[in-house]
């Protein structure tokens, strides 16, 4: 099995550079993208019952190594960091292509687990994009998955219900944040992981021409930025015995309808 994991900045620590109007991510603490923790857990559950090896693939800056080690501390067997300056500013096309190239290089897999979306760009496009480049099936928005007689059986959570799907691997599965409770890492496994280390691949080792990746390989580009005006709110203090005043305000605003109108 392969899991796709991205290290994302913790939202709390993101801020905007007031001069250059860019997000300053370098100062933010990195965490494993939340739904990728669930993707890893889904893979670990299958490993618990069926055995198998789990390879974590992550594309990102050198610091992302920490997040990979954390995944290995939870039970992943191998960690690969795709890292190269030329990958910078990739959109989901170029990102999917780069990750698909790494999956091809790993070669042997039956299921790829990805998170449903990332919290920092949040498109949810990379999982299906990788599946498309590899020409394999996909099952998105899963809340459960298991192997039965060589088939993957998964439940997809949609707007109006749960779809139970069966398909034959190889398949890419995306996992929702409410699918499971991710386990914690174990110290012993973490020590093993540090000993084993994380492999680092660049565009050369993936045989990708630089003009296919990063900003050059991206069909979309950011043209301009607007900073939305934060709405200023009054924070009007209300004491417990002023609650009737507050409720009258809500009536005036048309939020509450009174018996007289009804």
């Amino acid at each position, binding site marked *: 099995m392969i899991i796709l994991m991205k290290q994302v900045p913790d939202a*709390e620590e*993101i801020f*905007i550079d007031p001069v250059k109007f860019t997000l300053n991510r370098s100062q933010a603490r990195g965490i494993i993208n939340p*739904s990728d923790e669930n993707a890893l857990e889904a893979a670990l559950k299958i490993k618990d019952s069926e055995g198998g090896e789990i390879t974590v693939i992550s594309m990102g800056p050198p610091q992302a190594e920490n997040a990979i080690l954390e995944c290995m501390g939870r039970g992943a067997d191998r960690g690969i960091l795709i890292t190269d300056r030329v990958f910078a500013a990739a959109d*989901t*096309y170029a990102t999917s*292509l780069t990750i*698909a*190239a790494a999956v091809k290089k790993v070669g042997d897999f039956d299921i790829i687990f990805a998170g449903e979306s990332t*919290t920092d*760009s*949040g*498109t949810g*496009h990379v999982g*299906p*994009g990788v599946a*498309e*480049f*590899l*020409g394999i*099936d*996909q099952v*998105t*928005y899963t809340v459960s998955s298991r192997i039965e007689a060589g088939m993957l059986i998964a439940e997809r959570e*949609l*707007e*109006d*219900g*749960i*779809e*139970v*799907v069966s*398909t*034959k691997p190889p398949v890419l599965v995306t996992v929702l944040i*409410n699918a499971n409770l991710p386990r914690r890492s174990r110290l012993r496994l973490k020590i093993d992981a540090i000993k084993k280390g994380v492999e680092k691949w660049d565009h050369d080792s993936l045989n*990708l*021409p630089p003009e296919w990746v990063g900003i050059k*390989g991206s*069909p*979309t*580009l*950011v*043209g301009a*930025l607007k*900073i*939305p005006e934060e*709405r200023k*709110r*009054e924070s009007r203090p*209300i004491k*417990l015995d002023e609650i*009737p*005043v*507050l409720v009258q305000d*809500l*009536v005036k605003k048309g*939020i509450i309808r*009174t*018996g007289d109108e*009804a």
Partner: protein
Amino acid sequence: MVELINCVIPEHPEDYHNVFVYIEHKNGRISRGALEMLGKARELAQKLGEKAVGVAVGKNLKDIASEAESYGCDLFLGAEVTDFTGFSSVAYTEFIASFVEEHKPNIFLISGSREGRDLVSRIAIRCRTGVAADCIELDVDVPNRLLIAWRPSFGDKTIDQILCKRHRPQMITSRPGSYKMPEKIEKHTCEVKIKKVKMAKYAGEHRTLEFKQKDRLDLTSAKIIVSGGLGLGNASGFKLVKDLADSLGGQVGASRPVVDLGWIPYEHQVGQTGQTVRPKLYIAAGISGKIQHIVGMKASETIISINTDPEAPIVKFSDYFINADASKALPRLTEEIKKVIAGTPASSPG
């Protein structure tokens, strides 16, 4: 296997015309998100002097086509599935991409529903083009026939303009609820072209075994939400939140830790990893207002917070701040609201 391939620039981008829109449908009706996109497609097509073209896959597409017609669709391209029912990303991608190849649209809009987001990335890569996801504003540079899409960035700190200058079609998604529902149009005629297709040819062994109908709690369309956080003290604190929500005819929301503790199911979670809501009234009881919660509710029209800590970050995001114990403030609010709704004059100086 689809080969890894660079996003090839089409040789004649000027040959790409019209605005495609993916017509998602369930139980014989076009879904709300797709109708919003159809409204947008019509708007853009009119500015460009082009056609709004609906593309759909599934069964009974004639009925879907006539609903699309009533919302201003000019041309309807359907892939009528004649073998089994169910959904397969691979097969749907194949059918839709074949329409793209044949008709060469300049713009392609897909609702960011679960189905839309499942498909859009595959379709875009199949067509060697890019996607701007979750756009909230669309415009068009008419002379250059360039789509100008705006999407909020991480944590809504900026709104980014996304362009796809050289590749075609220019694809975007928007979350359902991002735009107004379009009006129906009287006496519009739509050309309908439906071809028969078989899923089995592309879906491999992918099958839908069962569908368990269950409406997910949709906080995104709630008018009033009362949310509780760790400050409620324990799971039974949610009873007070529920009582207040009931008195207002609203829904119950929650912060993440109380979901993690199992006080309330995940479907109630508001925030970065929960739902993004914009009700008329949002009441946050015992919630500190960490950024991951704020991004999910700050677009609410009126915000009331209840917190024992006057320094809590939620305070500056609030229109009203009740500095009190939630176990006291919540029942007082409920009682007063019930009185007012029943028509008894309020017992207050206001």
